[in-house]
C-alpha cells in the first residue's frame, strides 16, 4: 500500500457524506449524496473511486455509524423515523443529555448552504501544478472543514449533527471516525484496525523537580511538547483524525505543524491567535496536551508505530539536550570534544527518557460473518477479556444489557432497523485496551546507574554534567572552574551562581530559551521574560490596587531611576497598565526585581519605600490552584450509570415519542444505558481541549491576575494572586462544566465581573467566547480543586507537595469540592474543604437560583464582611467559644444548628451588623448540614476553618476592590 492510497481513502471518507447533510436531507432533490460530495469526488477520483478504497470507506462508515448510533445502522426509513432538521432542529449535549431546540431553520435555503459548502471545500483543495495533493487536501479538510467563515451560521456549522435522529454527535466526529477507520483498513494487509494507547512519563516527579516557577512551567511545557512529538508520528503517518483522544483539531502546536511542516496554506492560519499574538499570551506558551493518547491504527502496524513513537520522543529529547549542551560548552569556552565526560553522562542520563508505555488491541478479536455482521457470542473476545474483566461467560461489555440488545438484529414492521457490526463492540475493545495498558505499566524498566560525587541541584539522583570527572568530588564553595561556574557567568539569568545541573535539569532549565528561540525563528515572536515569579504574583495584589487607586500617578522619580530590571507581570495587570504612563508601566514591571535584588542591609529600606509607594505593606502571599475533573476514568470507560445516558435521551424528541407510542416493547432498549462510543470520547476530549485551551486561560489570565502553568486533559495548574483566589476557583469550576446560574446578577456582582465586557458567556454546557461556540463537559461533570496559599519565599517543592495533598483532600471530601490550605509563614496552617454546592443540592437545581448561597460564595461574602465593616476579631472570638459548644450527639442536629446560628449571628452582628449576622446564620446552617450528611465534616471545625480562611483572605488589601461587599 502506498501512502497516496491512505490519503485518498481519507478524501473518499470525507466525501461520503456532505457536511451540510442535516440541512439538506429530504430537501435536496439530488439527495444528500448527490450534491457537494459528488462534485468533490469527481475532482478527486475522475475515473471513479478505486474498489479497495470504496470498500474501506463503506466499512468505515458502517463501523463509525454503528459505534456512535447503533440504533439506526441501516434502517429507519419509515416516516416516523425521519426528522427534517430545518423543521425540527434539535441538538443534544453528548455528555449531559440536555436538549437544545433551535426553533426553525427553514430560512436556510438548501441550495444556498450547498453552494456555500461547495465553495468552502473547493477552497480547501490543495493542488500542485493542477494535480490535487491528496495529503494536504485531506489535512486541510480535517482542519478547516468545520470552520465555515462565509456562512451566517458559523456556530451551527460546527455543531451540525451526523444524524438528525440522534443529534448528540456532530458530522465532524462522524467524518473523522470514518476517515480513521477507512485509512486503517486500506493500509492494513488484513484490512483490520486496532486501538493503540500510549502514555509518556514520568509526570509528577518530573514537574515537581523545580526551583522556580520557570522550572515548573518548563517541566509542564516540555511534557506536553514530548507528547506532541509522539503524536506527530501518528499524525504524519495516518493522519491526525486517527487520534481519538486527545482531539488535535485547533491545537496551536498542531496548527504550527500543519503550516510549517506539512505546508498547508499559511493564509488559512493568518488570524489564528498563535500567529497574531506576539506576547507571552500566545497560546503556544500553554502546556495543553495530556501525556496519553488513544488512536485507531492499522492493526498490523500497531507495534511498529508504537516503537516509532517511542524512538521519536527519545530522539527529540536527546537531540535538544545535546544542542543545549553544545551551546553551553561553546559559550563557556570549552572545546567540544566528544570524549568529554559530559557527553557520556548525557547519553546515560537520558537513556530511556521519557518512559513510554503502550498497548494495542485489534478489532480482529471480534467475530463477524462475510457480511460484516458481528456474531452474538463473541467467543474470542470473551476469551481475551476474561483475565482482565472477570471470569464470567460474558465479561465486560459482552455481559451488559446494551450488548444483549445490540447483538441481535432489530426489526420493526418487518424492516431491519439495525444489524450489529464490529463498530458496536468499540466499548469492549476500548475496555480491554484500558486494562492491557494498565497491566503493561506494571514494570517501569530501568538500567543500573551509579552517580558519583555531589549531584545535580535539581535532580538529586543524577550527576551534574562535567568536563572533568574529578570536579564531581568538589564540595560547594570549591567549584571555581567547573563547566557550571563558567556557564553562570555566560548565562547570568539562566543559571544561578553555584548551581550545577544534570542532563534532564539542563533540558528543563534551557527549554524556555530554546522554545522562545524557536518561536522567534518561526513566528517572529520575541518574548524574553514570561514566567511570572511567585514574588511578582504576590505583589500583583498590591500593584493592581496601586494602579486602580490613583492611576499609578505616584511613581517617585528616584525609585524609577533605580528600578530598571523588568519582570514578567500577570497578563491582566499588563492590560491594565496599557493605558498608563510609561513611568507607571516601568515602575510596575521593575518593582518586583528591585525588591528581590536588595542585599541584606537594603532590604528593609526598599520594603519601606515600596510600602510608601503602594500605600500599604507589599503583599507577600500568593496561591497555587490544582483542579482536576472528577471520575474521568468513569467518564471515559462509561461503565457507571451516573455518567451514561439512556438511548432514549440521545434521540430526537420526535423519534422518542414515535417509538414510545408505536413500539412499547422497545422500552427496555430505550431505557438501556448507552455504552461508551468514539464520538463520546471525542466529545469529552474536545470539551477538555476547549476548556484547557480557551476558558482556563481566559479565567486565570484575563479575568484574574494569574499564570496558567498547565491545562491539559482535565487538569489545571495555575498560580494566582491572593485577592483573586476565590474568584478564580469558582470561575474555573463553572467554566469546566460550562454552566452559569439563571439569575446571574448577584453572582456577577459578588465576583466583581460587571465591567468584564469580553468575558466568556457560559450556559448549559457551552461557552460563547471570542466568537466561538465551545461545547464543554456539561452539568453532570464535576471537578475538585485544591488551593494552597503560601508566602512567596516558601520553597516551591513544599508548596507543590501541599498542593497535591490539598487537591486530594478536596477529592476525599466527596468530590465536586474545593479545599484551601493556608501555609502561614509563621508555621501555622489552616485547612478547609467544602463542597461546591450545599448538601442535598445538585447542579441543575442550584443553577436555577443565583449560586450566592453556595459554600464558595458564602466564603467570599464572609471575606468581604471582614474586609469591610466587620472586625476580624469576630473570627478569633468565635474560636474561643466554639469548642465549648455541645455536639449534635448531645443535643440533636436541629438544636445545635439553632444554637450555632444564634451565637454566630450574635458574634458577627456585634462586630459587623445585620448583614454579617445573616452570613453567620448561613454558615451555621451549612456547617450543620454538612456535619449531618457526612462524618468527614465536623461542625465546629468547618466553622472555625471557614472563619479563619475568610479572615486571612480579608487582611489588608486582599479583598478584591471590585467585588461586592456582601
Amino acid at each position: 500500500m502506498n501512502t497516496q492510497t491512505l490519503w485518498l481513502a481519507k478524501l473518499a471518507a470525507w466525501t461520503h457524506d456532505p457536511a451540510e447533510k442535516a440541512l439538506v436531507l429530504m430537501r435536496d432533490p439530488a439527495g444528500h449524496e448527490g450534491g457537494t460530495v459528488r462534485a468533490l469526488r469527481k475532482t478527486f477520483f475522475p475515473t471513479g473511486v478505486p474498489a479497495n478504497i470504496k470498500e474501506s470507506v463503506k466499512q468505515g462508515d458502517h463501523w463509525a455509524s454503528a459505534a456512535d448510533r447503533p440504533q439506526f445502522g441501516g434502517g429507519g426509513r419509515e416516516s416516523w423515523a425521519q426528522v427534517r432538521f430545518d423543521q425540527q432542529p434539535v441538538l443534544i449535549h453528548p455528555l449531559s443529555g440536555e436538549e437544545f431546540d433551535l426553533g426553525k431553520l427553514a430560512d436556510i435555503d438548501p441550495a444556498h448552504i450547498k453552494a456555500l459548502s461547495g465553495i468552502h471545500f473547493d477552497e480547501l483543495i490543495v493542488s500542485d501544478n493542477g494535480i490535487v495533493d491528496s495529503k494536504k487536501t485531506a489535512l486541510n479538510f480535517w482542519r478547516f472543514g468545520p470552520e465555515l467563515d462565509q456562512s451566517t451560521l458559523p456556530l451551527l456549522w460546527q455543531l451540525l449533527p451526523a444524524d438528525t435522529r440522534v443529534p448528540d454527535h456532530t458530522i465532524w466526529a462522524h467524518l473523522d471516525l470514518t476517515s480513521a477507520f477507512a485509512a486503517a483498513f486500506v493500509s492494513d494487509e488484513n484490512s483490520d484496525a486496532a486501538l493503540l494507547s500510549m502514555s509518556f512519563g514520568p509526570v509528577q516527579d518530573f514537574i515537581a523537580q523545580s526551583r522556580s516557577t520557570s522550572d515548573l512551567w518548563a517541566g509542564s511545557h516540555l511534557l506536553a511538547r514530548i507528547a506532541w512529538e509522539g503524536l506527530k508520528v501518528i499524525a504524519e503517518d495516518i493522519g491526525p483524525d486517527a487520534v481519538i483522544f486527545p482531539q488535535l483539531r485547533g491545537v496551536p502546536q498542531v496548527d504550527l505543524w500543519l503550516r510549517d511542516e506539512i505546508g498547508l496554506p499559511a493564509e488559512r492560519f493568518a488570524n489564528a491567535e498563535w500567529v497574531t499574538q506576539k506576547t507571552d499570551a500566545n497560546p503556544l506558551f500553554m502546556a495543553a496536551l495530556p501525556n496519553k493518547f488513544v488512536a485507531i491504527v492499522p492493526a498490523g502496524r500497531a507495534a511498529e508505530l508504537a516503537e516509532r513513537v517511542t524512538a521519536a520522543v527519545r530522539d527529540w529529547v536527546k537531540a535538544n539536550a545535546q544542542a543545549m549542551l553544545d551551546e553551553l560548552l561553546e559559550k563557556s569556552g570549552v572545546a567540544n570534544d566528544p570524549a568529554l565526560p559530559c557527553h557520556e553522562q548525557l547519553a546515560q542520563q537520558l537513556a530511556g527518557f521519557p518512559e513510554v508505555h503502550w498497548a494495542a488491541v485489534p478489532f480482529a478479536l471480534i467475530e463477524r460473518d462475510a457480511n460484516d455482521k458481528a456474531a452474538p457470542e463473541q467467543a474470542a473476545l470473551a476469551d481475551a477479556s476474561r483475565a482482565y474483566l472477570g471470569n464470567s461467560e460474558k465479561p465486560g461489555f459482552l455481559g451488559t444489557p446494551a450488548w444483549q440488545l445490540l447483538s441481535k438484529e432489530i426489526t420493526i414492521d418487518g424492516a431491519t432497523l439495525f444489524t450489529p457490526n464490529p463498530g458496536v463492540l468499540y466499548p469492549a475493545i476500548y475496555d480491554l485496551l484500558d486494562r492491557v495498558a494498565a497491566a503493561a505499566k506494571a514494570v517501569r524498566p530501568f538500567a543500573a546507574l551509579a552517580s558519583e560525587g555531589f549531584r545535580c541541584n535539581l535532580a538529586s539522583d543524577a550527576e551534574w554534567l562535567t568536563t572533568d570527572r574529578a570536579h564531581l568530588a568538589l564540595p560547594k564553595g570549591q567549584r571555581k572552574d567547573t563547566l557550571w561556574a563558567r556557564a553562570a557567568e555566560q548565562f547570568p539569568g539562566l543559571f544561578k551562581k553555584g548551581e550545577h545541573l544534570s542532563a534532564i535539569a539542563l533540558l528543563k532549565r534551557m527549554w524556555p530559551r530554546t522554545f522562545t528561540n524557536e518561536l522567534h525563528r518561526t513566528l517572529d515572536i520575541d518574548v524574553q521574560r514570561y514566567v511570572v515569579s511567585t514574588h511578582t504574583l504576590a505583589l500583583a495584589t498590591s500593584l493592581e490596587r496601586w494602579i486602580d487607586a490613583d492611576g499609578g500617578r505616584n511613581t517617585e522619580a528616584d525609585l524609577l531611576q533605580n528600578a530598571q530590571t523588568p519582570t514578567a507581570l500577570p497578563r491582566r495587570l499588563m492590560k491594565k497598565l496599557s493605558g498608563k504612563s510609561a513611568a507607571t508601566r516601568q515602575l510596575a514591571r521593575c518593582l518586583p526585581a528591585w525588591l528581590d535584588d536588595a542585599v541584606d542591609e537594603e532590604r528593609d529600606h526598599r520594603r519601606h519605600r515600596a510600602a510608601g509607594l503602594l500605600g500599604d505593606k507589599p503583599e507577600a502571599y500568593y496561591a497555587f490552584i490544582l483542579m482536576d475533573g472528577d471520575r474521568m476514568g468513569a467518564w471515559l470507560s462509561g461503565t457507571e450509570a451516573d455518567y451514561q445516558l439512556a438511548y432514549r435521551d440521545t434521540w430526537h424528541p420526535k423519534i422518542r415519542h414515535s417509538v414510545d407510542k408505536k413500539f412499547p416493547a422497545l422500552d427496555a432498549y430505550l431505557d438501556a444505558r448507552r455504552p461508551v462510543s468514539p464520538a463520546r470520547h471525542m466529545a469529552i476530549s474536545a470539551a477538555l481541549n476547549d476548556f484547557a485551551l480557551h476558558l482556563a486561560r481566559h479565567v486565570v489570565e484575563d479575568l484574574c491576575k494569574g499564570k496558567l502553568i498547565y491545562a491539559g486533559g482535565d487538569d489545571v495548574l495555575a498560580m494566582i494572586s491572593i485577592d483573586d483566589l476565590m474568584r478564580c476557583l469558582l470561575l474555573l469550576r463553572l467554566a469546566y462544566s460550562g454552566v452559569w446560574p439563571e439569575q446571574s446578577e448577584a453572582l456577577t456582582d459578588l465576583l466583581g465581573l460587571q465591567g468584564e465586557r469580553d468575558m466568556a458567556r457560559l450556559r448549559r454546557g457551552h461557552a460563547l467566547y471570542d466568537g466561538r461556540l465551545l461545547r464543554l463537559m456539561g452539568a453532570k461533570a464535576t471537578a475538585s480543586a485544591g488551593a494552597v496559599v503560601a508566602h512567596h519565599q516558601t520553597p516551591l517543592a513544599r508548596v507543590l507537595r501541599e498542593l497535591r495533598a490539598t487537591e486530594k483532600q478536596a477529592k476525599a471530601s466527596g468530590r465536586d469540592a474545593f479545599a484551601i490550605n493556608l501555609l502561614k509563614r509563621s508555621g501555622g496552617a489552616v485547612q478547609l474543604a467544602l463542597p461546591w454546592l450545599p448538601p442535598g443540592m445538585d447542579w441543575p437545581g442550584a443553577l436555577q437560583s443565583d449560586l450566592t448561597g453556595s459554600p464558595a460564595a458564602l466564603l467570599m461574602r464572609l471575606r468581604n464582611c471582614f474586609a469591610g465593616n466587620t472586625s476580624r476579631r469576630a473570627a478569633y472570638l468565635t474560636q474561643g467559644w466554639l469548642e465549648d459548644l455541645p455536639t449534635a450527639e448531645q443535643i440533636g442536629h436541629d438544636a445545635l444548628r439553632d444554637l450555632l446560628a444564634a451565637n454566630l449571628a450574635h458574634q458577627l452582628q456585634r462586630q459587623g451588623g445585620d448583614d454579617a449576622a445573616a452570613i453567620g446564620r448561613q454558615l451555621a446552617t451549612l456547617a450543620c448540614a454538612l456535619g449531618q450528611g457526612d462524618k468527614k465534616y465536623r461542625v465546629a471545625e468547618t466553622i472555625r476553618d471557614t472563619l479563619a480562611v475568610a479572615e486571612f483572605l480579608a487582611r489588608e488589601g486582599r479583598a478584591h476592590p471590585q467585588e461586592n461587599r456582601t
Partner: protein
Amino acid sequence: MTTLFLEPLDVLFLRGNQHFGAAGAHGAALMPPWPSLAAGAIRSRLMAEGASLDSLADFRLTHFGLGRRLGANAADSGIEALLPLPADVMVSRETLDDARYAVPTAPPMGVTSSHALPQLPVFCLDKPAKPIGGLWLNAAGIKAWLAGAPIAASHLLHASQLWQLDTRLGIALDAQKRSAADGKIYTAEAVAFAKAVGFVARYQGAPALPENSLIRLGGDGRGAVARPSVFDFPQPDWDRIARERRFRLLLTTPGLFADGWKPAGIPATLAAASVNRADTISGWDMLTGQPKPAQRIAPVGSVYWYGKLADIEALKALLHNGLEAAANPTRHAEGFNHCHIAPWAEEN
C-alpha cells in the same frame, strides 16, 4: 542473630535522596527509610559499647522494616513485622474488603504491548478502579500473602495508623552573627510514630546490644530505644513451590541489582513482574567525607513471578543470604536486597 525493636522516643527526621541544603529548602521525609539507617545506628551503638571496626566486619543486617509491639508494656518482647502492600495486591474499596492478587497472564492473540516480559500481571476487575495507596500488611496479612491466600480487610493497615508527618519550621542561622538569618526559613517533615510502632531490625555477625540501648536514628540524631525482641516470618511452603516449580519473590528491602530492575542469579525463569519506578539510594560516606554513589534501586514491595524453578536449595539460600550478595558487599551488609519467597497466589 539478634532481633531488635527500635522504638522512637521522639519524632524522627528520615530523609531520602532529596536535597536539603540551601536555606529556604524543604526537607521531605522518606518512609520507610533505607535499611542503612538501622545498620549505621546499630553499628555506631556497638562501637560506643567498645566494638572495634574489625569486629564488625561480618556485621550484616538481615531484616529491616516497620514493626509494631504486641504487648501493652514497652518491655514486652513480642512484635509483629509489617510490610508495605506488595505490588501484586490491589485494594480499591474504602472498606478494604476487595483485595485481589494480580495474575500473570499471557496477552491474548493479537494484543501487543510495551511490557518487558512474556506475561502481564493482571488485576481482574469487572470495572476499572483506582488502587488505594499507603496500605500495609500486618503479620496475619504477611502470613496470608506468603501462603498466596486471600488478603482480608483485617490484614491491612493505613499508613496513617502507623505514622503521621509533621512539618517543622526552622530558621537558618547567620554563621557570622550567630543569630537568625533574615528571611531564611526552612521546613522539614518529621515522622511522628503511632504508639507502639517502630522498626524491626535483625542482624548477624556482631554481638547483641545491651538491653534498652539508646540509639540515634536519622537527622538531628533523635533517639530510639533498642529492645531485644522475638518474631519470625512463616516459612514459605517449599513443598508446594518444588511441586509447582514456580514462586513469587517480594523485595522486603530495596533491591540494588546489576541489571537495574531485574535481580540476577535466580535459579528460575522470570515470567512476570510488578516493579514501580526506580528509587535512588545514596548517603554520606563518613570515611571518605564524600557522598556515597547514588544508585537506582527497585523499590520495596516489588514482586517478581518466576517459573521453571531449577534448584530449590539455591532458592532457599537466596532467601537467607539476600539477592546478588557478592556484587555489593557494603550495601548487602547494610540490609539491601532482602526478599520473601512465596508460591504463586491462588486465583482470585
